[in-house]
């Protein structure tokens, strides 16, 4: 339950941050949230992974569906992927991994510096 809370907090903050600032602010958000949270490094990873992944999933679908997959199809071809769905997946996984790494970093720091 606590994990879900952090996922949602990270997702919302990452969405706002990257709307206004460059993409890597999603990582900063995941780190800042988890470094202040009392969760294990493993859960912190999941919070970052799920949080940033969720934002990227929602925004990607928001772009892709009304576009009828024109752009995702073309970009998939650019990267040598067989279809646009895979391009969507690659995008989301990339965001999730960056978020997860940042969350894990926060979790480990929190644990190490916690008295």
């Amino acid at each position, binding site marked *: 339950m606590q994990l879900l809370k952090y996922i949602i907090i990270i997702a919302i903050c990452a969405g706002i941050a990257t709307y206004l600032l460059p993409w890597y602010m999603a990582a900063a958000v995941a780190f800042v949230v988890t470094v202040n949270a009392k969760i294990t490094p493993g859960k912190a990873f999941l919070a970052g992974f799920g949080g940033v992944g969720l934002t990227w999933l929602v925004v990607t679908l*928001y772009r892709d569906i009304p576009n009828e997959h024109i752009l995702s199809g073309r970009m998939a071809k650019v990267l040598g992927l067989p279809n646009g769905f895979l391009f969507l997946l690659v995008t989301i996984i990339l965001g999730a991994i960056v978020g997860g790494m940042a969350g894990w970093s926060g979790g480990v720091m929190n644990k190490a510096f916690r008295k």
Partner: protein
Amino acid sequence: MRRLLAILPLILTAALVYILNKPMGSIPALGALLDPMNGCWASAEPTGKDFSQTIQLQGTQQPVKIWFDERLVAHIEAANDHDLYMAQGYVHAYFRLWQMDLQTRAAGGRVSEVLGDKAVDFDRLQRRKGMVYGAENSLKAMEADPRSKGMLDAYTEGINQYINSLNYRRLPLEYKMIGFKPEPWTNLKCALLLKYMADDLTGYTEDIQLTILRNRLKQENSMFNPNMLFDKVFAERNKGTVPVIPADTIPQIASLKAPITPADSIMCVPLTGEDFAVNENEGKGSNNWALSGSRTKSGAPILCNDPHLGLNLPSLWYEMQLHAPGVNVYGVSLPGSPGIIIGFNDNISWGFTNNYRDVKDFYAIKEPSANTYWFAGKELLYTNRIEQIRIKGKPDYNDTVRYTLHGPLIYDAHFIAPGKLKIPLALTWMAHRPSNEILSIYLLNRSSNYEQYVAAIQQFLCPAQNMLYADVQGNIALWGQGQFINKWRGQGRYIMDGSDSSTLWGQNIPVGENPHAFNPAQGYLASANQTVTDTTYPYWYNGYFYEFRSWRINQVLQRTTAATVQDMFALQQDVFSVLAANVLPVFLQHLPVHTLNNTERNWLQQLAGWDYRLTKDSKAATVFMVWWYYAYNRLATVGRTDDLKMSPERLMEMVTGRDDAPYMLDEDILYASFKQASDSLNKLQKANRLEWYHAKNTTVKHLTKLPAFSYGDLEVGGWGNTVNAVKGDHGPSWRMVVQMTKDIEAYGVYPGGQSGNPGSKYYATFLDKWVKGEYYRLSFVPAASKPNDKDIKYTWTIQP
């Protein structure tokens, strides 16, 4: 220690972010690119996007209304010229900014700035050709006239207001993929774009190869096949031409006397060279024709034009209507230039084909020292122009280009000429001269009768065009328009001796004496890049003319009566090959059939009963074209494989025996080339690509050449030797048919779409129709009318 280790994940994460935020070679920064919020995903335009909006545009004097029809063709309605061109700049930038940026960078030799050092040689060639020098000269002329200056200033301002409104998220996709940003637009960029067109249309040259070949053959003549004497193979004029300007309409009087031709060694310097890239010379160019009312069903003239240019996405053209007091014009514009280039207004219509008279000449320079060159017995100082080439990720490269009286040294010891020539070559090119084509477009868009049209095109100096005209009064006309030089016979056909003053370009031929025709007795006018005039034209010129399409168009139009627009569509789609119809029977007659094996005979049978049409599904067309390719490569060369080839027209005349001297078709070559063709055809058959459209693989390529943004293997017939000249990457870039009835009836299509965004539904909307040979009825609104509400899909309201 434990706390120290705890920083490790953070360092790892930072490293990951750093890598994802940094471009690696040609791979863009993946994190930024894939970011759904700001990266490539931001270019995913909703297919149901409502384009309607209200825009604040500082500097406009009155509100401007722009409405878009369902094809996203912009119709701008402004209260004055300034607002009109400002809005046009804004619209061009909105839909096509990246393309405008890249094309003008390419024109000015600034590609290395964004693509890195692989483009340095390209950039150097552009600078050494004098592209920027020419654009600067023209800009002075454009800014000297208040009409063109006002037009340019407003247009540039409109583009810049759009650029200033952009953040990273809203940048066109290609900027994010390549990793650069738009810079402010300038009037110079407009001038560069026009030089880009001038280079595309007058940049082709055979001077260097022709010089070297002539010198070699002069020495070897007697040892060669007597069929192959230089003057015969490279005759000054194509025989059998049906010229652009019908014979009976040429003005006979020349106000200038022909200068005297100097000694042969000055006209053509003795040079040797080697290792040329093999040139391809088969019919590129454009068609236009106009019928008088006497030949049409409606009784009103019909004007048709299909300029053949590189087939790219985003398309070179952007379709629009411009309406303000004194102007109401529809047609295609060039993003990067104000005005409508090809189109029509309430009273007149016009179309262009390339004129191809040679306006680009080379000079061999003798230099006694690194800073000086000989001219007329004097040692003159070069003028140096330092070309600073910025290179992405590398230090700048400074290229010192030395200028002579003739023009820049395009090639020298620091930039070796084709053929590995040892001496420096200077370039004289009409595109270097100040000229104001923008003013010409300004006036042309506002012309309402023949006199105004003639006055307008007098300003159009380079690239020279065959400018076709038709009006609602029933007139048709055609001008071979450009600035030409009164040359001595042979001037500029070869590399000239730059130290001799007689080689300098002489007087301008008065523009009013350019060949032209007005309402000719034959009832039609047609140009397809063929020879401009017959031998009665008093001035000497050479050029790179093509005849096949002209022969076919004239053949069809001569028997055309009561023509409809549908007949004109059909002629634009015509794929009858005059080349095949003439050459194939002779080839078949001389091919030693008894020596062919079974597979080869099967291929031969494909040709039986063929109608000489390069239709998309024809296998016979593939067999002929592949055979022709190999046969031409061998029959058209004089000695070495990298020699300049004679024109296909010339070869056709020789093999069909239309020539004064008999020609022996070499059966061994025919047989060997048929064997080669058979091998290629076997491979095509194995790959299941024997249909003509598969074999030629017409591709409309995105400017980055990315296949993902391009469309290949288009199901379309034709080739350079047919009216529908669709080649691999070159072809009809805009097909237009305008019937000059009182209510103008116009049709058009281009192989692209109005949006330059590969993520947009409108990116290549028209391509399918273009491939099928279909047309859109153009939604031109006459000055006195209002648009139909049902035609208005989106509206932009621009507020000052």
